Structure formats: C-alpha cells, structure tokens
C-alpha cells in the first residue's frame, strides 16, 4: 500500500538526521529572512548530501520548505513597510508568466549552458553589488 510519505529505506534515520534537518531549516530560514531569497539554492544540496534526499525530489522538497518561509518573510517585510505595490504587482505578473515559459523551456533546452551563463551573470552582479 503506497502512502504519501517517503519510506525510510535508504535514508538514515537517527538523531544525526534530526540535527541535519534542523540545521537545513535554520539556515534556509535565516537566508530567506535576511536576503529575501536564495535559500532554495542552499537547501537543495543540503537535502541531497546531508539528508540523503533523492536528487530528483530535492528541488520539489526545497519548494515545500521555502514556500512557507517566503510567505512569512513576505508578511514581515510588508509589515515593515518594505513592500512597494507598484513594483511587486507587475513583477508578480511577470514571474508567473515567466515561470510558465521557463517550465516549458526546461523540457526543450539543455540546462548546462544556461547555468554557466547564469553563474557568470550572477557573479558579475554580485561583484557590482558588493563593491559599487
């Protein structure tokens, strides 16, 4: 009988796992609250390497983790007055449209070069924000 819960077969299940789980969540939460994003990219490797999550499930699982955290962060940021509707609404619309397009493209394009270009662009943006 199949249940919705992943079986423990092949996964450690001891107190170290609990510590790793807490650590993963704590770091994801901190990054999400402090930077408003980027937590997912940290969580995925932690899920795979520390928590022995099946790599095919890591991205989806990361989403399950990041979603409530982002919602909470979003509420706090809005309460602190950082949210600007004039920016947020059009961006939100764009993100949904882009997300659909991106999911479609995912099945068509090789992601390797996209990631390479993306990494370079991110590095440049990072340097600019850090020093200028």
């Amino acid at each position, binding site marked *: 009988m199949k249940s919705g819960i992943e079986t423990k077969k092949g*996964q450690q299940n001891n107190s170290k796992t*609990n510590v790793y789980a*807490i650590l993963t*969540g*704590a*770091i*994801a*939460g*901190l*990054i*999400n*609250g402090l*930077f408003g*994003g*980027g937590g997912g990219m*940290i969580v995925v*490797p932690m899920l795979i390497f520390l928590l022995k*999550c099946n790599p095919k*499930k*890591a*991205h*989806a*699982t990361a*989403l*399950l*983790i*990041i*979603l409530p*955290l982002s919602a909470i*962060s979003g509420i*706090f*940021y809005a309460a*602190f007055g950082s*949210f600007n509707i004039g*920016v947020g609404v*059009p961006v*939100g*619309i*764009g*993100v*949904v*449209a*882009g997300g*659909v*397009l*991106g*999911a479609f493209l*995912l099945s068509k*394009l090789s992601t*390797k070069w*996209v*990631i390479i270009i*993306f990494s*370079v662009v*991110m*590095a440049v943006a*990072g*340097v600019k*924000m*850090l020093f200028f």
Partner: protein
Amino acid sequence: MEFLWYVFAGVLSGVLGGMGMGGGTVLIPLLNIFYSVSQHTAQASNLISFLPMAVVALIIHLKNRLVDFNKILFIIIPGVFTCIFGCYLARAINGELLKRMFGGFLFLLSVFQFVTEMRKSK
C-alpha cells in the same frame, strides 16, 4: 511604461525560476542594479512575487509525488524561527550594507553553482 519594465524583470527571473534555477537571485540584483529599487524593497518584491508561482509549482510537484516529507517538520519549524529573526535582522541593517552583503552572498553562490555544474559534466 514603468509597469511593463517591471513585468519584464519578473518574466526574466520567472523563466530562470521555472527552469529550477533560483529566480530570486536574478530578480533582486536586476531590480537593484537596473531599476534602482532599494535593496529592502527588491527583497520584499521577490518574496511576494514568488508566492503565486510557488504554490502552483508545488501542487504540481505534490501530484507527481516528487516531494519528500522525511523530517519535514524538523526542517520547517526551526526555519520559521530563523526566518523571522532574519527579517528583523534585515530591517536593522541599512539598505546599502544589506546590498553589499547580498552581493557577496550572490557571488559565493554563483561560484558554487558554476563549480557544481562543471563537476556534473565531467
């Protein structure tokens, strides 16, 4: 007109996010560098604009049984606390410093991602 430019920024980051590549890390620099949006506002925009798409994506993932619930509460519950702490911390830091911190984080992330991808294809 400005409205459309913001939509465009969202589309760019949404495409990358839709490909599983962390759209937030594109949107925040994009808004901050090219649109002169303050760091806090850019971060807030990213958080909130991410939600609708994330809900839809998650529903699809759940349907496809791609989500692993092992230890999920051990992960999320501490995360909630550190997340709230992070929000207060961000508020306490001025926008310029937060921007630089984010930039450093982004740079580290990009190196990590690049190395990981290069290793994958070896």
